[in-house]
């Protein structure tokens, strides 16, 4: 299968670009914003001001490209690694910081953002994404759903069932597989025998596309096509984004237990942000001064979000038994009163 690619490793265009100048600038900004967040929260994490965090360094383009192809009324159904997709889709940074602080205040998406809370059990999001998409179709809307899963996640039964259902129902879903080379310590070639994950699409009778996941122009354009197909009622698309997890699996992981440094070094050279910046500079759309200004702006936004997050009230013990049912049951009530010190 051919890999869709628009930029070479330096960011020079390999062919005509399908994006406008404002789009290119918006895309670069979204990438930088994501990277900034990732770098900064990792520092927070080391300071003990964040919980376990799954970094996404190197995968920004694969996530941002899909999020940019969505409308506000569409849906984002992520795995745990899609912080970059979430923030690009509109999730406030404050929520995200609180979320990765395991603070209940961050676990609820604002009412106008159709994003389901990050999914921890691998691949369980897939049939649900199909369900949301099918419901939108039955309701007669043209909203679509984008869902994400890793190379490892494709091995789960839910991946299979969700894709098959979507195919049968022509559900408007984009299935984005970020093939980042690893599922914790297991490399993709031990996860599956097939070379290209996108080939799995053929087994469901749906289109499968392989894209350079570190090339934002490529990801965004294939995601746009998949989104249009879905919106038209022509059903789902499976996209395989070839990328690499530069960072540890999570802040608790030590990759030296299972891989050498060399591999990462190769991929550092294909950094999606440097490539996009290379393109913008080549097109004379961007310079050092603008970049500096952007950095400052992003740091300002980040600090404001941290400040807001820091002011969030401490989680209360009794929140544990709230939101179990629409109306609190007797068994929860006993606990609630006990936890409020009233029992």
């Amino acid at each position, binding site marked *: 299968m051919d890999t869709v690619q628009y930029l070479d490793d330096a960011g020079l265009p390999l062919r005509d670009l399908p994006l406008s100048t404002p789009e290119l600038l918006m895309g670069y900004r979204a990438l930088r914003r994501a990277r900034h967040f990732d770098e900064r929260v990792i520092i927070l994490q080391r300071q003990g001001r964040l919980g376990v965090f799954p970094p996404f360094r190197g995968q920004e383009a694969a996530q941002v490209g899909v999020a940019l192809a969505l409308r506000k009324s569409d*849906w984002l159904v992520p795995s745990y690694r899609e912080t970059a997709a979430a923030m690009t889709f509109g999730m406030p940074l404050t929520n995200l910081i609180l979320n990765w602080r395991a603070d*209940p*205040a961050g*676990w*609820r*998406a604002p*009412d106008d953002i159709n994003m*389901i*809370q990050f999914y*921890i*059990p691998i691949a*369980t999001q*897939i*049939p*649900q*994404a*199909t*369900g*949301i*998409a*099918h*419901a*939108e179709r*039955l*309701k007669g809307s043209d909203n679509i759903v984008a869902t994400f899963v890793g190379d490892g996640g494709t091995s789960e*039964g*839910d991946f299979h*069932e*969700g894709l*098959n*259902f979507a195919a*049968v129902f022509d559900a408007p879903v984009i299935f984005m597989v970020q093939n980042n080379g690893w599922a914790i310590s297991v490399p993709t070639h031990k996860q599956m025998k097939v070379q290209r994950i996108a080939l799995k699409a053929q087994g469901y009778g749906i289109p499968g596309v392989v894209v350079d996941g570190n090339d934002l122009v490529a990801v965004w354009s294939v995601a746009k096509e998949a989104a249009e197909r879905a919106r038209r009622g022509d059903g789902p698309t499976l996209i395989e984004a070839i990328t690499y997890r530069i960072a540890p699996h999570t802040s608790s992981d030590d990759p030296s237990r299972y891989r050498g440094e060399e591999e990462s070094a190769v991929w550092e050279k294909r950094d999606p942000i440097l490539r996009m910046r290379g393109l913008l500079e080549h097109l004379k759309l961007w310079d050092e001064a603008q970049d500096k200004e952007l950095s400052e702006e992003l740091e300002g936004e980040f600090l404001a979000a941290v400040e807001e997050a820091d002011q969030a009230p401490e989680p209360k013990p009794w929140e544990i038994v709230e*939101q*179990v*049912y*629409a*109306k609190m*049951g*007797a*068994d929860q009530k006993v606990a609630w009163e006990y936890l409020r010190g009233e029992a």
Partner: protein
Amino acid sequence: MIADRESKTRALNNVQAINEALDLALERDPKVVLFGEDVGRMGGVFRASDGLQPKYGEKRVFDTPLAESGIVGLGIGMAMAGLRPVAEIQFAGFLYPALDQILSHLGRMRHRTRGRFSVPMVIRAPYGGGVKTPEQHADSPEAILSQVAGVKVIIPSSPERAKGLLLSAIEDPDPVFFLEAIKLYRSVKAEVPEGYYTLPIGKTRVVRQGHAASLFCYGGMVEVCQKAAEVAAKEGVELEIVDLETLVPLDTEGVLESVKKTGRAVIVYEAMRTGGFGAEVAARIAEEALDHLQAPIVRVAGWDAPYPPFSAVENFYRPDARRVLEAVRKVLTY
């Protein structure tokens, strides 16, 4: 919205009552959708959705591929997107492939999104034994479902209750399991009110009043307890039968009230004894009504073995009136 009890009734069996409830729900709320394996074109292997696809169309009543995790996952998604999915799992023993969706998400979604998303979904499944079904078609997994936070579990025991409780379940803002005893599907007919009505979720129901001992049961075991009570009555022993009806949330008050009255508790269920839902009922009684007990709490349940695939002997696994009466004797002569 409890039915006007003056309304006209007809004799229906359980499948007919369930079919009628589904029909009324589809008619009343355009957000209700029905799906599952063989649910559409064929109207379900037990005909619970018979005639509904022709009436409401393939968008609202549809067949799915053969994949239970997919079915439950689909429903969770549809519910989050604002619909009211009612899924059928062909037999409760085939809920197992869906247990990841059930344990990881079905009841957790409201909690983990702090109320932003909820899953007003109903999952219906025939359960239990007594009719010589093939292997795994007679399983009773209600205890497992009772360990799922955030879901409700209802098991009706008569056509009238089945209809009203199913309509309540479909109206409920939270996920509900609705297990239907296969044994009762067609074996009994009883008067069922016409029209739309709901019955309260979370209430036990005293099926028969008595002072000698309380029989706690649900679903297919209610008729077994009734038979036992009739035999006992002939000997002048008046047993009280409490149909739990809603297992989660359990009406602890209702259970305790009966125990306080009779002082003796026998709990009857057809699932495997160890870890069965009857243990929960016993534990609540032992914690809250100890002083009222005049005898040990006795469980009559399936043996600690798989439901036998050897149907000739299945009725030695499934509790029957004889075993219930032995337990009654035990608590009465203690």
